[in-house]
Every structure is written in C-alpha cells, then in structure tokens.
C-alpha cells in the first residue's frame, strides 16, 4: 500500500476537487493531470530526490492516480447527490429542457428524452439516487480520469527529470 500512497493521496485530492465547483472553475481539465504530476513529485521525494523515475513508471503512477481519482470522484459525487438530493444535473435541468425544446427535432423524440431526464431528476430529488446517473458517473470517471492521469504522469516525469538532468549538468 505504501507503494501507492502518493497516487492514493493525490487521487483522493483530485476526487474531492472534482466535486468542488469553485476548484473546478479554476482548474478545469487540469485537476487529474496536476494530481498525477504531484504524485510523481511525492514519489520522488519519498524515495530519494536523486532517484530517476522513468516514463513507464510515470505512466503507471498517472494511471493509478487517475483510477483513485475516478473511484473517489464517483464516490463523492454519488454520496453528495444522495445526501443533498441535488446535483449539477438537477440544477441544469431547466436549461436542458429549454435547449431540447429549441432543437428542431420531432416532438415525440423531445417528449421521450425529456421524460427520461425528468425520471432521473425525480429519482434524485426523492431518493437521492438514480441508477442511470450512477452508471453515467462511474463509466465516465473510469474512462476519462485514467487517460488524463497518464498524460499528467508522462508530462510530470518529463518536467521533473529534465530539471534533474539540468542540475546534473
């Protein structure tokens, strides 16, 4: 477990920040890559500043950080939705309705999608949980976060190791 501690800590942090609106506004798509970058920095600090982290290890640390971020991000998203019986989908439902109504689509199609979304929103408002919403959150988190984690991990290794190689010279 100690081996994965930097990834765990940074993944946890990224998972929390993903559900904090202010942090999300400020950092946008950089939360998970930044977490992976920080995980590599912490890994270097924890092992030895002189130890060289190669790209393969960086990619693995990024992947694991992304996976932890996906797990914690999904958990906090669903947990907060369960407690508050509210989330961004519920608050954006009126905008979504207006957008759908403005689409030049068949009326039956509009009614079908609005009914589907209204069911999801109602489930969240009454029970705090919707299977469809949970599925959407978990799948998206598990696919997107590890990819962004790997990107952050590779860039992190490059930046930190080039700094080291400059120092060695």
């Amino acid at each position, binding site marked *: 477990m100690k081996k994965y501690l930097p990834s765990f800590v940074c993944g946890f942090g990224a998972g929390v920040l993903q559900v904090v609106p202010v942090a999300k506004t400020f950092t*946008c798509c950089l939360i998970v890559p930044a977490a992976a970058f920080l995980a590599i920095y912490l890994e270097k600090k924890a092992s030895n500043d002189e130890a060289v982290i190669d*790209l393969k290890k960086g*990619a693995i640390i990024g992947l694991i950080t992304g996976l932890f971020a996906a797990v914690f991000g999904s958990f906090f998203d669903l947990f907060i939705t369960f407690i508050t019986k509210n989330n*961004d989908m519920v608050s954006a439902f009126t905008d979504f309705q207006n957008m759908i109504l403005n689409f030049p689509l068949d009326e039956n199609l509009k009614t079908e999608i609005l009914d589907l979304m209204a069911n999801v929103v109602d489930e969240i408002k009454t029970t705090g949980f919707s299977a469809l919403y949970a599925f959407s959150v978990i*799948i998206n*988190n598990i696919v997107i976060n590890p990819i962004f984690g790997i990107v952050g991990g*590779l*860039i992190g*290794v490059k930046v930190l190791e080039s700094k080291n190689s400059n120092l060695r010279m």
Partner: protein
Amino acid sequence: MILAFRKSYLKIFLLLLFVFWSIGIFYNTFIYLFPNLIFFHPFINKCYSLVCHQHNEKLINIFGLPLLVCARCSGIYFGLLISAVVNVFIRNKVLITNKILLLFSLPLIIDVIRNYLKIYDYSIIVAFISGLFFGAVLFFYFYNIILEFLQKYLTEK
C-alpha cells in the same frame, strides 16, 4: 525504417484520437444531423463535464448551440487538433523545451488569474486564443514524450 513506419502510425493514431475527442465537443450540432443522438446527450455531456466546468456564459455557441466545453478548453483541444494535423505532414521533430511550454502557457495562466481577480471581464475570444496557443505547443511536447516512451520500450522488445 520500422521506427519511421511506427511513427506514422502514431501520428495518425493521435490525430484520430483528437478528431474523435473534438467531434464530441460539437455533439449538440450533430444532434441536428442525427436526432437519435439526443438520447446519449446526458451521458456525453457528463463525460465532458468531468474535464470542464461548462458555465453557460463561457461556452462558445455555434448556430445557437453551445459546445460541450468552455472557450478556454475548446481552444486547448483545437490547438491540440491543429498540431496533430500539422504533425502528420512534417518529418522533422519539433523540439519543445519546458521553457517554451511555460512561455506559451503564460497567456492562459495570466488570463485565468486576471479573470479570477476580476481585473477584466471574461472574454471568450481571449480565453479561446490563449488556450489555442497552449494546446498547440502542448501537443508537440506530449508527442515527443510518447515517441521517447515508445522508442525506449517497444523497440527494445
């Protein structure tokens, strides 16, 4: 020769990846062409909401339909896409150092900070262009890393 062959595959793979990702940003526009795509809209929207705040006032509208990411993120992704296209047609390596990456990310960082401190109002154009510069340079930086990674681990096997 084998490496050059793999390089071209890598270039095309990355291009397809960014084309695929960029198409998703225009999902609302595609609903016009394929109305049944509307059923996947909440799912796709959630996917992009993971990587962008999607504030209404910061979204670019195409024919009255908003993109799924903000102007700054759109700039970054289109910068990546443009560089991915250019990369297919060039043979020489574009070397991007940390300093160059930092230099090109400065407009973006300054714009974010100035907006955050409310020194000036948010401008979709400024956000898009600053993102575009950063994305364009970030692609070559990332491409060189991937290339180094593949050269090291795949060619050894």
